[in-house]
């Protein structure tokens, strides 16, 4: 796999102005190193205030590292000349679906990014239609965003990014404000974009049930990387996660506790089907 995004020893501090406390605590990110390959689906998990959202905003030059570098397809995010190339390559979807829709009609909002990039009108039309179909919102193209549900609005926001034909989409807690149904809609859309279109996905979330769907889980705690691996590797570290007061899925937790009591169970299970299968084996003897 081709290396795509590289975060190299990044420290980041919000500019608090005069009299800033120089102690280590004032840094939101403290020495992050991370490489992301093309086509990967990476979930970034952590508490509120762990630095995960701050990290998300480094991938497309919204934030610039205080020290260290971030490279996107070889371009340094500090380099102003590449600003639009970087934002074209890496799209960012934010948490609040209401606040990122610019226009009063769905299709015009989706077109907004392409219009900014100076894409010719005919091509914008095709791109917008394709993007709306990709998130399953084509039939709503003439609607006003006010009348849509949270999940639908968030899919419109995703379509607005897709229309810019990015290689990577970063989603900063896209489901935090949604109901369970909206959450399902958004996550299945994201999974489909990753599997069918090969778009690299970086999903910032605090829902472990969403993280298990990724190829790779990165856990951020107090501005540093705590764990980085496949969901199975990461969630097998039950004790470490507990110590940092992080959740694991209930299925994983149950399996872990029973295994601790000497039951013959696998190292780690991720979802209810896997857990039930494993339990059936020991209970049906």
């Amino acid at each position, binding site marked *: 796999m081709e290396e795509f995004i590289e975060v190299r020893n990044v420290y980041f501090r919000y500019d608090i102005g005069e009299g800033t406390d120089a102690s280590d605590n004032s840094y939101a990110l403290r020495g992050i190193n991370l490489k992301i390959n093309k086509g990967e689906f990476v979930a970034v998990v952590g508490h509120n205030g762990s630095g995960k959202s701050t990290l998300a905003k480094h991938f*497309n030059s*919204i934030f610039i590292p205080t020290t260290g570098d971030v490279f996107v397809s070889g371009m340094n995010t500090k380099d102003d000349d590449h600003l*639009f190339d970087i*934002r*074209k390559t890496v*799209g*960012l979807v*934010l948490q*609040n679906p*209401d*606040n*990122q*829709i*610019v*226009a*009063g*009609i769905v*299709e*015009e909002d989706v*077109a*907004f*990014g*392409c*219009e*900014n*990039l*100076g*894409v*010719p*009108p005919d091509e*914008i*039309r095709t791109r*917008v239609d394709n993007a709306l179909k990709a998130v399953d919102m084509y039939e709503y193209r003439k609607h006003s*965003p*006010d009348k849509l549900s949270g999940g639908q609005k968030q899919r419109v*926001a995703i379509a*607005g*990014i897709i229309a*810019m034909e990015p290689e990577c989409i970063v989603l900063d807690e896209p489901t935090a404000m949604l109901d369970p149904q909206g959450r399902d809609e958004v996550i299945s859309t994201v999974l489909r974009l990753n599997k069918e279109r090969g778009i690299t996905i970086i999903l910032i979330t605090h829902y472990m049930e969403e993280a298990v769907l990724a190829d790779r889980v990165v856990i951020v705690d107090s501005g540093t990387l705590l764990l980085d691996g496949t969901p199975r590797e990461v969630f097998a570290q039950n004790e470490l996660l507990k110590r940092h007061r992080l959740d694991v899925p209930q299925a994983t937790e149950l399996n872990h506790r029973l295994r601790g009591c000497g039951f013959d169970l696998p190292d780690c299970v991720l979802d209810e089907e896997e857990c039930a299968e494993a339990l059936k084996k020991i209970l049906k003897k």
Partner: protein
Amino acid sequence: MGRDITLGQFMPGHSVIHRLDARSKILLLISYIVFIFIAGNYMSLLLITMASLLVVLSTRISFKMYLKSMRVILFVVLFTGILNIFYGSGEVLWEWWIIKITQGGINNAIFVTVRIATLVMISSVLTFTTSPSDLTDAIERLLKPLTVFHIKVHEIAMMMTIALRFIPVLLEETDKIMNAQKARGADMESGNVFKRVKALIPVLIPLFVSSFRRANDLAMAMECRCYNGGKGRTRMRILRFSGVDLFALIFSLVIFSGVILCNIYFSPLTR
């Protein structure tokens, strides 16, 4: 409360008027307004009013909707109408103490009333048949020449777009905050003016804070989508003048010439 307010009374449809280019509609509306005031006698006023009614009917929107939009200013129309009766010259029809009603006064009253009513009606045609985004788009394109004078036309249009998008959002939010404060015993329905204004503080402050938060988010979202002002920007929708626009133009020119001819050939009105 808030949720009942519908902004921009756009009513989608497929009538000839709906199909007109928004730019034509704006320009024609302005010329109609000018000619409503140019009309100087009953014949020319009748002509422009009839033409306006024809336009209204061809939108295929129920006439009730137009009456509704007129109801809002009914008071103003009646008030100015009645006031005008007492001013004017010419033959005195009726006199009592210092009050004099003249032929000129009656003419004035009728003229003012018909003019305002026609004006509101024809303006409603624009807002009823044009989507808000078409409207801002057309304004941006029509004002484009003003960029020569360093007027930020694109920015103005973008502000209008964002305002139209967020007004319903903020109305809903106001509703929510009001309910939340009412649940804590805020009393917004009684007391004198001073008390009521003071009672609004718990609503206005959260509303301001949240507007700033939204503005911040929106700015970031726009940056993520490479927004860089109007420079090098293209548009998905291309506004194009078509046969319908040409037809509307010819129709209007005929009416306008008629108004001028009527003004010339029929005697001017006593005022």
